[in-house]
Each structure stands twice: as structure tokens, then as C-alpha cells.
């Protein structure tokens, strides 16, 4: 116990229709950059990590992106494992994107751990002229599907762009049991360490 404090891990996911700006929001939050026209997924990266110190305690926020598997709704159930929080992102300038959200809520309901914290995000507020979804509609949808928070953002102009992530961490930390290691998904104690270091060559042969 006297060893250096190991940071508590918070796992968060982004889901939602293709092109709503999930990857852009993630990059804005982690690297504070915005690359217009870059429609690629974070290439070669399984998740992005952000280290946080909150009330002098260390946290590792692991942010998983959809890797393009949202395009045909082929996210795997394993993507959702162990998630503490989910950001559901749509594009306020694309009505279809908003209309698909009930399906994303359903999918999260189906695969994510019970009690996962959901936050609804309407992205691309900078596209004022093209707005196709009212903020009140987003608000209502969030309520209907048990999302704990709703906000509108722009990954392009930074408008509220960090808020959903910060809110997610806040809520995870302030919700009793949300980080409970006894949740089935986080019961790490039973797991065999198969990393290369753990390997003890040819240990217990009977002869």
C-alpha cells in the first residue's frame, strides 16, 4: 500500500452516427486541435488517454473511439465492456443524425454495463445556418433516455467542447458506486496476468 498511488481508471466511450464529430471532439479534448476535412478515425490508436488530478487524486481517463465501426452499426459488444460513461454524439446540422439517436441509446442500453453514465451531445453548433435540431429537442431526448446531462458543442470553435468530458468525469466521481471495483465489469482481482513479464517459463512440470 506504500507503493506510489496507482491512478484510478475511468473508461469512457464515444458513440453515435458517423460524421457527427466524435473523433473531432476527442481530439479537441485531448490535443486541443481541430482538423477540418479529416474524416479518418484516430489511426492505429485503440484509445486516447488523459491524466487528470482532481482533489489531489490521480485519474486516468481512457477515451475509446468507435474506429469507424459505427458506420454500419457494427460496434462489438466488447467495445462497451467496463465503460463508466458514454458520450452519445449527434450532429445538430443533420436531422437524420439526431433521429438515429434512439437506436444508439438502445444499443448502449443493451451492451453497456448497468448504471453506466450517459451524456448526450449535440455537436457542430458553429453551423448556425444549417441547424436542423433544436436544443430543446436534444434536452428532451436526453431526459427520455436517462442521459444525465445534455450539452451542445462545437469541436471546431471549442464552444463547450470540453464540457461533456469534464461533466462525465464529475458525475462518475460523484455517483456512489459508479467506480465501485465490485461491479462485475471491474472485478479485476480474478484475472490472470498474461503479460510477457508475468510469464514464468516452464514452471510446474511434474518431472
Amino acid at each position, binding site marked *: 500500500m506504500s507503493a506510489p498511488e496507482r491512478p484510478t481508471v475511468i473508461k469512457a466511450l464515444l458513440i453515435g452516427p458517423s460524421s457527427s464529430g466524435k473523433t473531432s471532439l476527442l481530439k479537441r479534448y485531448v490535443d486541443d486541435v481541430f482538423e477540418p476535412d479529416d474524416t479518418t478515425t484516430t489511426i492505429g*490508436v485503440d484509445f486516447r488517454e488523459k491524466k487528470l488530478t482532481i482533489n489531489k487524486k490521480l485519474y486516468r481517463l481512457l477515451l475509446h473511439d468507435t474506429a469507424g465501426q459505427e458506420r454500419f452499426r457494427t460496434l462489438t459488444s466488447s467495445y462497451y465492456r467496463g465503460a463508466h460513461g458514454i458520450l452519445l454524439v449527434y450532429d445538430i446540422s443533420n436531422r437524420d443524425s439526431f433521429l438515429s439517436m434512439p437506436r444508439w441509446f438502445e444499443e448502449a442500453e443493451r451492451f453497456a454495463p448497468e448504471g453506466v453514465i450517459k451524456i448526450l451531445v449535440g455537436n457542430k453548433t458553429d453551423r448556425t445556418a444549417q441547424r436542423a435540431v433544436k436544443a430543446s429537442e436534444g434536452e428532451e431526448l436526453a431526459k427520455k433516455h436517462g442521459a444525465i446531462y445534455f450539452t451542445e458543442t462545437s469541436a471546431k470553435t471549442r464552444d463547450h467542447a470540453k464540457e461533456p468530458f469534464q461533466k462525465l468525469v464529475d458525475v462518475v466521481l460523484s455517483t456512489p458506486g459508479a467506480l465501485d471495483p465490485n461491479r462485475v465489469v471491474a472485478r479485476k482481482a480474478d484475472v490472470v496476468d498474461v503479460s510477457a513479464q508475468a510469464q*514464468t517459463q516452464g514452471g510446474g512440470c511434474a518431472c
Partner: protein
Amino acid sequence: MCWVDVTSLLDTTTTNTPNPLVDPSRSFSAMNIEALDQTVWDAVIAGTGLRESLLAAALARAGKKVLHLDQNPYYGEEYAALSLDELEAWTQNVKLSHIRSVQYKTYPVPEGSGLKKSRSYTLSLSPGLLYTASPILSLLIKSNLHESLEFLKVGGWFVYDAATPLSDPLKRVPNTREDIFNDKTLDPRTKRVVVRALKSMVGSEGVNLGTAATSSGLSLQQYLEQPSFRLPSSIIVAFTSLTLLHNLPSELPLGEAEERIKKHFDSLGRFGAGFSAVISRYASGSELVQVLCRAAAVTGNAIYVLENGIVDIQEPGSVSPPIQALPNESTEQGIRLSLKSGDVVRTRHVVGTASNLPITAPADQISSESTGYWMSIYVVSSPLKQIFQTDEPPPAAGAIIYVPAGSIEVNGYSNTNPMYVVVHSSDTGECPDGQSILYISMKETSSGGAEFFDATVKSLLQNLTSQESGADNTAGHILLSVTFKTCADLEPPDQSSSGRVHLLSRHVPMIEIPDSLVEQTMEIYEKIVGSRDAFLEKTAPQEPEPPGEKSG
């Protein structure tokens, strides 16, 4: 954004029998499909079985463009993990020629102890055991994919001993020399001989595997009964249980048995004391598949589409020069594939099993000599804690029980072939707490099959729950069983495939995820990439490509 109504396309593809597994809301949109024909794919892979997914991940990591399809609305094929509803639907719609006599059965149980909601189960058709010395596991570790998986111990290996009904009928198979010497049921002579026999088969470090007896055509039983050993049948059965092979000890070729037993002992102690195998949490093989597919997608080189498949393959003129050049649409057409959705895509290579490709493969015909196996999945209302106990923490989440021939009686007949029962605890995340999953398998015999399974499970439940100390002395019940017969002979990779259509042989996982998967996958990988080097290795993170080069 203009979405095309794809209803008409869907109509042509639905089968006559309603399939509750097909969720229309998950159908792909025509808008998205358009993008699929903008590229000449390096490989289109049909089916998301373990080999296909391993290949997809390796190819994508090697920079190849992969379109990965599955006809089902879920990943995994023969390793798929299903909820109760999905499993029931599966039993009603089995399309595979080698799976027969499927039966889904629920049992009447006392109020409150029954099955929980469908989604609290993640049932796989095979238990997906991996030895710690398995090349699949080393591949996963080398490529860092193990970090996305949680491996749990397969702890005890037991032999069900019907002869001693008064004492504990489950005898733990000893793992170490100390175990053997501490075993109170063995006399000193037997102890010495067991160690000697084991040494002769497993060999010590550096000694060539294969005793002179290996090639002599002896069975395991004959070998252990020969005068220099004269081991009793209880010991022979214990040795047999380590092979995970379904033959009788008298029909188990010594060489094969030695290889399997060696694997067990090679694996012991690799990642901790007292266990030789692991399973991945959440239906083992299925989870491996999903992690591999995500790894493929994360590279940005692989696109995933479920509920779609290949209905037609058109190869270009047969005497075209080998394809080396970069995609050049005017000169290189590649193979044209018509998809179930009506789309046409082009690719350099096609990979899949015969059941996923519009090919009639002679290899997929079930020959009359095929070995048949009865397989069954049971859900029971008992945690069976006792069999998951281990000397060292953490406790095991999997256990193996070997039920020798002649130990279970039904209507005056006893089982002529041995059975393996692989037990998964609720720690696997595959069933609710307080329940367990039992996978049973047995080689088909003329004198019956699956009817022994119910009797075996009941007997195990009775014996194990009566052992369970404390107040909760409620005997466990069977809640559900799914039983089917399968033809499991693994043919060698089919050679009938042309240079670009790579046909995978039928794959029927039994207890273990077989090592041969890696070889089969690498063979195709080599044909596509040109070398096996760096298989599944992560290439250095690329700089984002300059804009404009992207399709999409």
C-alpha cells in the same frame, strides 16, 4: 445527406423462415454501401470466425484494405456468443450442414430459481479453452491485444469416479510431483511408477519427444498397462483426462496422447501455479473475435458490415499477370463480388469458408465416416463453488470434469464413451451469479448419446451440492440445455482454392481453441502479403495521411 430506401434490397435477401436474429434496424444503409465500391479491396473476408478475424487484424495491421462481412447480425460464427433469445433463434435456424439434431430445452424448476432475463447470458457454442502455451495466446500477447481481454483460470481437472459414491466422487488430477506424492489414495510403488510413466511421455527439458513406443501403434492404455508400468485403470483414466480427446484410453494412439499431455505440462505454471489453461471472460472465443475485429478497424484499414455476404464471385480473365501494381482502375479490375445487399465490390483476394462463399466445395460434404460428436450446453442453478477452489488466489472460473466410460447409467445402459464436462462459473460474465454453465461433449456411439448428458449433469449437481457446506443446501437444478450433434473432423486446408479465392476448411471447435488456426491463417496471410514476417504486429503509428488521398 440523402438516404436511399433499402427496403427493396432487404426483401430479396430475407429467407422464407422468419429469423428473429435479424434486426431490421441494424441493416446498413445504401448510402454507406456506395463507399464500399470506391476502393479495390486487398481482401474481402466473408465470415467473422476466429481465423477470419485473426486474418483481418493481421492484414489491416500490415496496411491492407479489408472489407469484412458476416451474414449474421453478430460477430463470431462458430464462436459467437449469444443471449438466450438469440441462442433459441439459432437452434431454429441452424444453416450449417454439419450441425444436426438441435434441441433447445428448458426445465421446470422451483419458483424463483429459474432462468434470468435473456441478456444476462452470454452463451457460446464452445467453451474456448486456451492452453497457456498456445501460440494463439503468445500472438495476442506479442501484439498487445491481451490488454483488451481478461483471462481467467481453468483451475481443476477432475475425474468423476462413480466407484466411490460415499467419498467425494470428483478426484482432482494431480499436477505436480508433490501432488502425486501427497495423494493418499496411491501406494508408494504406484506413485513412483506414475512419475516414471509421466517422465517417459512428457520427457524432460531438451529430450526429444516421442518414445520408441510412440510409433509402435500402441494405445495409451496398452502403454500404461505394459509390465514395466502396470498402472491401474484409475491412473490411466487420469492421464486420459489431460488429453481433452474423446477416445477411449484403449483407442487413443499413444503419440497423440503424449503430445496432448505434454502440452498440458508445458503450460502448467506459465502464468501462475496450478493451472495450464485459461478462458477469456465473456464467452472466450467470441471475445477474441471481437477484439481482433476492433483491432482491424482501429487501423483504419478494415470496414465491417454485418448481415451481408457474397452471393457471386467473378474472377477476371484467368491468364492475367500477377497483381503487383498499385490499384489502377483501368488496367486492374480484380475479382468482382456481388454482395447480398445488391452491391458490387472489387477485390484482389477473397477469403471464407465454403458456407460463406458461393462455392460448392467437395470438402464441405459430410462423408459418412465423419466422426460425430454430441455437444451440449447446460445452464444450472448452482455456483458449483467447490470445483473452482484453487490453492492460490485468484479462484478459477473454469474447470474440467472427465467422466470415464461406464460411469453413468440410463435405462440399464451405461455410457460406452467418455464425456468431458467443461464448467464455467458466473465470474466469466456468461451467466448470472449463483448459476453455472456446463459444456458437455462425447463421441457419438451406436448405443446412444445425449441422453447421458442429463443424467451426468444431475449426478454432478447432486454430488457437488451435497458437498457444499453451510446452510444453502439447495440442490442445483438444470435450467436449460441446448444439445446438438456435430461432425467435427478437421480437414487440412482446402487446396482447391485458386490463387485469389482462399477457401478455409470447415472449423468445428470442441473444447479447446485449436492451435492449428494460427497456421491456417498465416498460410493465407502469406499468400496475400508475400511473407509471414510481422504477422499481426502493429506498424508504427502512421502520420495522418494528407487530406484528399482518402476515399470516403
